[in-house]
């Protein structure tokens, strides 16, 4: 019983990180219709920046701040670039999506060049503290992960509900054409979506850096897990992303505890596929949100 509780807590902690990854995917998808294949790389970028700052002897918060700033700026630059084709009369969204694959390749190789291929670990501010469940000890970092994820989720929610920018973003998400006709500036909206995605990714990356080692090539796994969480939630629902992330985190934790590491690696893509086949609109989405042919 204690063992199950232990695996559940670990899974919820990891799942919180996947939720944050998914939240970045979801904000960008609703804001611009772009599926971002570079989300995992933004997470790694944030984590490696923070690790460098920490290794230089500065505090955890400084690491977080630098990570967030760097990915925020990268997000703004990318947003500006990706806004250009979308302001044309006709554009091909499939090709734009392949552009994010190019971004992913670029950031992965730049990360390797700048930070080196050495895997990094970020010391948690709560290192050495544990939550005891019987004979099992859960590092305090896992509850912290959940707390941070909730905080970020509430912040993004506040941004979307109670600021002018957020309302414009939601208008864009509801109908790009109507928003455009009402005078919403698409380029600004796109840049803002990318910045939000970048900042969320950095927080997720820094947080996950304390429980798994991060190298430039971790981005694929982080990206697929983020996608899986986002798809479980329906790709367009922030709340669904949280549920999806927690589901996958718990499933991974349980399968690595009771089955094998291979099973753990297969969980995220399998969950993604099963949800896509059975409920492409996600567990929470409405049927109208996905068209099939």
């Amino acid at each position, binding site marked *: 019983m204690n063992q199950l509780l232990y695996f559940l807590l670990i899974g919820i902690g990891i799942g919180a990180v996947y939720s944050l990854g998914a939240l970045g995917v979801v904000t960008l*998808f609703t804001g611009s219709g772009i*599926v971002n*294949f570079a989300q995992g790389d933004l997470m790694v970028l944030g984590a490696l920046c923070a690790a460098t700052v920490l290794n230089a002897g500065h505090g955890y918060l400084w690491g977080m701040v630098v990570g967030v700033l760097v990915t925020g700026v990268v997000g703004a630059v990318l947003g500006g*670039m*990706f806004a*250009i*084709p979308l302001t*044309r*009369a*006709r*554009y*091909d*969204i*499939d*090709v*734009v*999506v*392949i*552009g*994010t*694959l*190019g*971004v*992913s*390749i*670029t*950031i*992965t*190789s*730049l990360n*390797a*060049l700048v930070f080196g291929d050495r895997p990094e670990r970020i010391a948690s501010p709560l290192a050495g503290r544990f939550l005891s469940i019987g004979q099992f000890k859960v590092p305090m970092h896992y509850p912290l992960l959940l707390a941070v994820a909730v905080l970020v989720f509430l912040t993004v929610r506040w941004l979307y509900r109670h600021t002018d920018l957020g309302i414009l973003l939601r208008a864009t998400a509801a109908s790009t054409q109507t928003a455009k006709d009402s005078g919403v500036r698409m380029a600004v909206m796109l840049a803002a979506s990318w910045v939000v995605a970048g900042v969320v990714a950095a927080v997720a990356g820094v947080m996950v850096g304390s429980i798994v080692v991060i190298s430039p090539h971790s981005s*694929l796994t982080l990206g*697929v897990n983020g*996608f*899986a969480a986002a*798809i479980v939630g329906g*790709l367009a629902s922030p709340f669904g992303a949280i549920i999806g992330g927690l589901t996958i985190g718990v499933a991974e934790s349980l399968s690595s505890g009771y089955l094998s590491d*291979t099973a753990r*690696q*297969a969980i*995220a*893509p*399998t969950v*993604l*596929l099963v949800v*896509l*086949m059975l409920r*492409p609109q996600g567990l929470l989405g409405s049927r109208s949100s*996905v*068209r*099939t*042919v």
Partner: protein
Amino acid sequence: MTAAGDIITPDAGASSKTMARRTWRWLQPAMLIAAGGFVLYGMRPDNFALRVMTLIAVYAVASVGMNVLVGFTGAVSIMNAAFLGIGGYSWARLADGPGAIAALGAGIGISLCIALAVGVLVLRLERFYFAVGTLALGTLATLTMRKWNGVTGGDAGMIGVRAIGVPSASRIESVFIVAVLALALFSYIQESMRHSALGKSMLVCRHDQAAGAGLGISVRASRLAAFAFSAVTGSIAGALVVQLAGSAFPEQFDVGTSISLIVIPIVGGRGWRWAPIAGAIVVIGGPEYFRFLAEYRLVAYGVLVTGLALFAPGGLREIAHLLVTGFRRIRPGRVR
């Protein structure tokens, strides 16, 4: 008249003269590729150059299928390295015992079955959902190759893979000859398919699904056909990849390879008949000749992909067109 010509129904009444002209047009890429390969071979290139040219031809074979898939139907698949893997491992396991035909046939057969199953389950999804689903499948395929030790040899891979033997030719030369011939064959199929009822229904569905459905075209069926075709070209290319390398490893068929495969037709100019070979020269040949740049060539590759996707979605074809017309007729957002 060819067998492919017989399938063409839209204008069954076309005169034999028209048909002959079309067949001639469809044969052009195949003949040029075969002739080009012959000339390059006759120039007795050194081993490195021949290796690079073989790699380009092999990946161009797989890219013909990708070109049909993404260029004709508009479906973005990030799992086609899995078909290369199926073809490659089938060859590596079966070429020695049951023989070349059985090895190639097994690869194609398994790839087709998997492509049809995946197609029925996932291809009905729109755009991104399909792209993300295939990314997940590609990840699962890599995991399978790495962990299914009994069949694939796991991370240690399989070495000492036999290559097809062309009389009085070395290993690389044999693979080069076979790859060029395969590329010529598939280029012919690509061209004749474009003008067939099937190819036209694919193109209609890419540009306007509603119009396609209104014409009584099954969007799903035409996409499924394109996906199955990409699986066939992929598994043949996979068999050639392991023959060239003499070994089969999971790294040859990972998600990075899938990304290269989808990028090749985009770089070339998707749907263009020269896109597979033009794209493969840049994406596969480029990095081989810029080895001295080490990691920087990956940065350049990523920047190239992003830049082309955002600013020249027509790829090399669009750039060539712009150069020819002297930038006079720039029409932003023109999608071809």
